[in-house]
């Protein structure tokens, strides 16, 4: 009996240490930031924290991809001003990615629909359990299904509808399968759609296909200086495995570039027919459409990127910084959160960081630099499954700080400038 008891105690210890270890491993890593910046963990272990939005009173709204305790949105409130959330309130019965605040409303998306909630004068949501559905029945075929959103403040909301495909082949991601001509996906996906903010139950017929030829945009933001929409596209995968005669592993790891665009009404960015080669610095034809890595075809007529980033990094959020607290260098520049790559394998993965692009008058004004790094938690964790955190959302607070969310560890950080 005693023996069994001691075994029992031993087992308990084992279980306890195992639990303690899991807690340890999901503890936030210390981020690498430029001198003068500090990061505070606002909250962690929230689940799949995708995009975030900050209200004028400092409340942070986090959209969860998968429900946590039956809820898909978490409001974080810091009541004593130490940067750490001490109150959480959860609502919304759908998972998803998109969330934004504009003119007294909170907007949030599932992978099919877009909803909105009204704030009252005290910055509390009036209809947490009964939002208005403003957009419904958007294409959701699992792949690239997240519906990122942003607003122009002038009555319109912009919704990304990602292509449920890699390169519009007849058989997706299948070696030897030809590209469909024309690509039928572009009628209902592979672009940005514009809807009104105040009309219920809009769907394809009610909206405008605002920009097309975008494989999958997860990061998008309205730039108030340029008064235009900007987006970041996830470039195609698998040039090497689908076309081994044309591309080797090393080439695939660097092709195609992830692209940062200005997206004006009516623009076409070329997917699936073209991709951007960041080494040749031009758009070339996709091999599914007759390309060989060099042929340009009519790809020169497609919109070119403002900035080309390393392949497969996965730009999941875009934020224009129009605050004053970071100094002139950062004013009106763009932050881009990179989720971290998988398709660079078997070569070393990359991304898992937040990049800054200096900008002036809506145009890049200097080279991009890595602003926040080491979300993965060390070189040994530089893979999508091992990374402790994967940056996914960005937002600016009314106090000029920025927030970064992560859908792997479920952490939200607040970044402030304390230097001089």
């Amino acid at each position, binding site marked *: 009996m005693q*023996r069994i008891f001691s075994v029992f105690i031993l087992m308990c210890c084992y279980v306890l240490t195992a639990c303690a270890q899991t807690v340890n491993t999901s503890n936030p890593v210390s981020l690498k930031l430029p001198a003068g910046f500090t990061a505070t963990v606002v909250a962690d272990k929230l689940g*799949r924290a995708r995009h975030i939005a900050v209200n004028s009173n400092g409340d942070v709204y986090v959209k969860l*991809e998968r429900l946590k305790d039956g809820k898909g949105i978490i409001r974080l409130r810091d009541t004593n001003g130490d940067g750490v959330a001490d109150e959480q309130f959860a609502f919304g019965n759908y998972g998803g990615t998109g969330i934004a605040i504009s003119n007294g409303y909170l907007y949030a998306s599932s992978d099919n629909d877009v909803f909105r909630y009204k704030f009252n004068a005290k910055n509390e949501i009036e209809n947490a359990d009964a939002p208005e559905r403003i957009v419904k029945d958007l294409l959701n075929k*699992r*792949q*690239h*299904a997240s519906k990122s959103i942003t607003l122009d403040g002038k009555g319109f909301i912009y919704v990304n509808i990602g292509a449920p495909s890699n390169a519009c082949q007849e*058989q*997706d*991601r*299948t*070696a*030897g399968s030809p590209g469909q001509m024309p690509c039928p996906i572009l009628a209902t996906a592979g672009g940005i759609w514009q809807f009104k903010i105040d009309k219920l139950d809009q769907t394809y017929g009610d909206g405008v296909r605002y920009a097309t030829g975008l494989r999958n945009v997860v990061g998008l933001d309205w730039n108030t200086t340029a008064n235009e929409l900007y987006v970041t596209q996830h470039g195609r*995968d*698998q040039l*090497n*495995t689908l076309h081994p005669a044309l591309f080797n592993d090393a080439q695939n790891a660097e092709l195609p570039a992830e692209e940062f665009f200005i997206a004006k009404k009516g623009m076409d960015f070329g997917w699936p027919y073209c991709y951007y080669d960041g080494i040749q610095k031009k758009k070339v034809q996709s091999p599914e459409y007759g390309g060989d890595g060099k042929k340009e075809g009519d790809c020169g007529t497609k919109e070119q990127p403002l900035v080309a980033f390393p392949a497969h990094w996965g730009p999941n959020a875009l934020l224009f910084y129009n605050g004053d607290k970071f100094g002139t260098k950062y004013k009106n520049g763009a932050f881009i959160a990179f989720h971290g790559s*998988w*398709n660079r*394998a*078997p070569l070393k993965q990359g991304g898992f960081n937040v990049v800054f692009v200096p900008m002036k008058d809506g145009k890049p004004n200097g080279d991009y630099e890595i602003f926040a790094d080491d979300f993965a938690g060390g070189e040994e964790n530089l*893979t*999508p*499954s*091992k990374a402790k955190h*994967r940056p996914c959302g960005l937002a600016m607070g009314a106090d000029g700080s920025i927030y970064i969310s992560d859908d*792997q560890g479920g952490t939200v950080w607040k970044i402030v400038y304390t230097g001089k």
Partner: protein
Amino acid sequence: MNKFLLIGSITVASVLMSFTITQPNLPASMQRGKKVYDTYCLTCHQMDGAGVPRMNPPLIKTTYVLGDKKKLINIILKGFNESVEINGDYFDNPMPAQPQLTDVQIADVLTYVRNSFGNRASMVTVVEVKTERTKLKKK
């Protein structure tokens, strides 16, 4: 306690023995299987078989990898694109069919997967692959 331990280790030993006796070609098949994996599977399921969260599932101790071999063979022959839970999660990418792989390549790669990344399970044989492929052709 000791008795249980003894019986336990005898069972384990005999299972291991039967494993090596009935699987004489395991090392060779594993070696060939790794090459197939690196070329046709690694990009999605990754070097360590851990996959990509929410996109491509892990191949570590899943019911598919360790379970019914017929089903497993068919995943390679027909591809896989269903909203199913795998190790507690859902994965959004489609897996392409890879019927262009030979029976030997499929047997080798599945044997490799079933005995790598912490997995341990019986080999998949060329005859088993052939049988499933023939069934598909008849349909």
